[in-house]
C-alpha cells in the first residue's frame, strides 16, 4: 500500500502537468470545466482543443503504440485524468469514440479496422455515437429489433434507435442490430459500424428535461454499410456490446468522477458565500457529500490496483457506476438546497437555460438511468459479484 507516485509515475505526471500548463490557455482555459459528455456548451472550441490533445498523443493514451497510442497503464490513465481535472480543462467531445468505441475496437477489431478508425478518433476528425437503445430495448437490450440484411456486399439496415446522445454531432454510429432472421434475445445480433452521413438515416432531436436536446431518435430506413463494417463475428454482437458496456461502467467516466471534486469545492464555496454553510444541517450534508466524493476516489484507486493486476474490469465495475451516479444525484439535490430561494430561478427561461448547479441537479437524474440503470447494476452486483440466484424469467 503506497499512494505516492512511483518515480516513473511522477515523471509522467510532470509531463502531463507541464503540457497542460503550456497549452491550456486563452479560449481553451476559458472553457474550464465546461460541458459534459452530453453538454454541447462551447462545442467548437472544445473540439479544437481536443484536436490539439490528439495531435500531441493525449487522445487514445491507452492504445497500443502501433496504433498511435502510448500504451499507457491504468495508473497513467488515472494520472492523466487527475491532472486534466486539476487543470480544469474542458470536457471532452469524443466520449463515445474514444471512451466506448475505441477500446471495444481494440479488443474485437481486425487490424484493418483499427487502422481505418483509430487515427480518425485520435485526430478528432470522426465522432461516434452509440446505437444501442430502442423503444422496446432499454434495460432489456437483448430485445433489439433493428434489422440488418446483407444485400450483395452491403448491409441494409431498418429500424429505430432512441436516446442516441449526440447523434447529430456524430459521423459514425456503432449499432446493435439483429442480423439473423427470426433470432431472439442475445443471439443473432451484430455490431455494425454505420456512416451517419447518408440518406437512409434520419435524426430527430429529443428535448430533455434540462431544456436542451443532446439525445435523439435515429431512424434507419434502408441505411447501408459495407459488409465488412462489422465488429466481431456476425451474429455475435452481444458479447461485443457487453464489452462496450463494461468500458462504459469501468473507465469511460473516470474523468467525470474526477471532476466531481471540483464541483464539490464549487458548492462549498457557494455555500460559504451565501451563508448556507452556517446552517448546521446543510454543513452536515455538505460534509457527507465530501465523504462520498473522497471515498469515490479511494474506491477508484483500489479498483485500479485490482485492474492493474488482473488486466480487466470485472462485474465489480457496477459498484463504481452505482456509486458515482447515486452520489452525484444526491449532491445535485443538495446543490439546489444550498441555493435556497436562488434555486427558484435559472439563467434564462426562454430558451430554458440552466446554470451549473441546476444542470447538475437535473442532469444527474440521467446518470442513474444510462450506462445501466441502478436497478440493473444492483442485479449485476447481486448475481455476478455476490452469486445470488437469478430471477426466474
Amino acid at each position: 500500500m503506497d499512494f505516492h507516485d512511483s518515480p516513473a509515475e511522477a515523471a509522467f505526471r510532470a509531463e502531463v502537468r507541464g503540457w497542460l500548463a503550456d497549452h491550456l490557455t486563452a479560449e481553451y482555459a476559458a472553457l474550464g470545466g465546461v460541458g459534459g459528455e452530453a453538454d454541447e456548451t462551447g462545442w467548437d472550441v472544445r473540439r479544437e482543443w481536443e484536436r490539439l490533445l490528439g495531435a500531441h498523443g493525449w487522445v487514445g493514451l491507452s492504445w497500443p503504440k502501433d496504433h498511435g497510442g502510448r500504451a499507457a497503464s491504468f495508473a497513467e490513465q488515472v494520472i492523466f485524468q487527475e491532472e486534466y481535472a486539476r487543470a480544469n480543462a474542458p470536457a471532452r467531445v469524443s466520449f463515445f469514440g474514444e471512451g466506448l468505441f475505441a477500446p471495444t475496437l481494440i479488443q474485437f477489431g481486425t487490424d484493418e479496422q483499427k487502422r481505418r478508425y483509430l487515427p480518425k478518433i485520435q485526430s478528432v476528425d470522426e465522432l461516434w455515437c452509440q446505437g444501442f437503445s430502442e423503444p422496446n430495448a432499454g434495460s432489456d437490450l437483448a430485445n433489439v429489433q433493428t434489422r440488418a440484411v446483407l444485400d450483395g456486399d452491403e448491409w441494409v439496415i431498418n429500424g429505430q434507435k432512441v436516446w442516441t446522445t449526440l447523434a447529430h454531432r456524430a459521423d459514425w454510429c456503432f449499432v446493435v442490430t439483429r442480423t439473423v432472421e427470426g433470432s431472439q434475445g442475445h443471439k443473432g445480433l451484430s455490431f455494425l459500424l454505420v456512416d451517419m452521413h447518408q440518406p437512409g438515416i434520419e435524426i430527430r432531436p429529443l428535448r430533455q428535461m434540462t431544456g436542451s436536446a443532446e439525445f435523439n431518435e435515429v431512424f434507419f430506413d434502408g441505411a447501408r454499410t459495407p459488409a465488412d463494417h462489422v465488429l466481431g463475428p456476425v451474429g455475435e454482437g452481444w458479447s461485443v456490446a457487453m464489452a462496450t458496456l463494461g468500458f462504459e461502467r469501468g473507465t469511460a467516466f473516470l474523468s467525470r468522477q474526477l471532476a466531481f471534486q471540483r464541483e464539490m469545492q464549487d458548492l462549498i464555496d457557494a455555500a460559504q458565500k451565501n451563508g448556507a454553510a452556517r446552517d448546521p444541517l446543510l454543513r452536515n450534508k455538505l460534509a457527507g457529500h465530501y465523504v462520498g466524493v473522497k471515498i469515490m476516489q479511494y474506491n477508484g484507486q483500489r479498483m485500479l490496483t485490482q485492474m492493474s493486476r488482473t488486466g480487466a474490469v470485472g462485474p465489480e465495475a457496477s459498484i463504481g457506476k452505482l456509486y458515482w451516479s447515486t452520489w452525484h444525484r444526491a449532491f445535485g439535490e443538495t446543490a439546489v438546497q444550498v441555493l435556497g430561494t436562488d434555486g427558484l430561478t435559472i439563467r434564462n427561461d426562454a430558451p430554458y437555460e440552466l446554470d451549473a448547479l441546476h444542470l447538475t441537479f437535473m442532469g444527474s437524474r440521467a446518470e442513474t438511468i444510462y450506462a445501466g440503470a441502478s436497478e440493473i447494476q444492483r442485479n449485476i452486483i447481486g448475481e455476478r459479484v455476490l452469486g445470488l440466484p437469478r430471477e426466474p424469467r
Partner: protein
Amino acid sequence: MNFAFSDEQEELRRIIRQFLEAKSPSSEVRRLMETTEGYDSAVWSQMAEQLGLQSLTIPEEYGGQGYSFVELGIALEEMGRVLLCAPYFSTVVLATNAILNAGNDAEKKALLPGIAAGETIAALAFTEPNGKWDAAGITLEATNKGGEWVLDGTKSFVIDGHTANLIVVVARVAGTSNTDGIALFTVAGDAAGLTRTPLATMDQTRKQAKLDFAGVKATPLGEPGQGFAAFSKTLDQAAVALANEMIGGAQCVLDMSVEYAKVRVQFGRPIGSFQAIKHKCADMLLEVESGKSAAYYAAWCAAEDNDELPVVAALAKAYISDAYFHCAAENIQIHGGIGFTWEHDAHLYFKRAKSSEIYLGDATYHRELLAQRIGI
C-alpha cells in the same frame, strides 16, 4: 500508487483469522459477554505469545515489533469480524497510542514493554458522564499538591476500565478550559482513591466502566497542561482503528446475509432471487467495499502520520458508522424472525455496530468535525 495489501500483510491476515476462528467462535463470544471481565486471559496471553498482537505497532526500542498502522488495521478488522472479546482496542489502540503520543522516552520505556508482552492491560479514561468526545468534555481535575499530582472527578464509558491494571487518564489542570490545560497521567488500576464500577453495556461484547477518582495520586505522562495535541491525535488514530474494526463486522454481516439469501426458500425460490433482497445485499456490498477503501486509506495515512490524518479519520468514522449499522440492521431484516432471536448472532453485530457508531462520536458528529477540518 498501489492500493493493495502486500503478500506479507495478506499472510498476517490469514494467520490472525485462523487464530481467531479457533479462539473466538460465537460460543466463546457468548460465554465471555456474560462475564464481568469480558475476556479470556489465556487467549490474551496466547495473542501476545503466539502472534505478538499486543506488540504489533509498538516500536522495537520499547519491546514491540514496529509494524505500522496498516498491520494494526488488519488485526482489528479480523477482530471486528468475529467480535473478539478482549481488551485489545483499549490497550493497544487507545492507551498505547496515548502513551506514544504524549509520553517522553523514559515514560514509554517504563510503560510500553509490559503492554507489548501482553502483561499489561491498559485503558484510556477520557470520556465523562457528560458524554462529550472532545477536549471540552474533560472536566476531571488534576491539581499539583506540593509537587504531587492528584486527580479528582469521574470518568465514564471507559472501555475495559474495570479490568485494566494501567489507566491512562485525560484530565485538565485545575482552572483551565477547552483545549488548554489538557494533562495526561497514568494510575494503577488498584490505586488508592479510585473506585471502578462496571457498567451494564448494551453491547455486551465490549465492556465499559465508570471510574471515580477521589484524590488519586497520578504520574504525569508528558508535560501536564500540554496534552491536547497528543490527545487529539490519539482520538484520530482511535477513529481510524475503530473504523477498521467496524468494517470487519460489516463484511461479516454481509456474508451472513448473502449466505442466508441463497439457502432460505420462500414462494418456491431462494429469497436472494427476489430483487428486494438482492438489492439490499448489493447496497450492503457497495457500503462494505466503500468502507474498506476509506478504512484502509485512513490506516495508511495513520501509518504515514501525514497531514491528511485528521480529515481522513473523521471521514472514515463518519462513513463507516452509518454503513456498519445499516448493514447490521439489514442483516436482521433479511433473516426474518430468526434474525430477531437471542440465539442468532445477528443481534450481537447489531449491538456492536450501534455501540461503535456512538463511540468516539457518531456520523453526524464526525461530519461536523470534517466540515471544520476542511474549512466549510
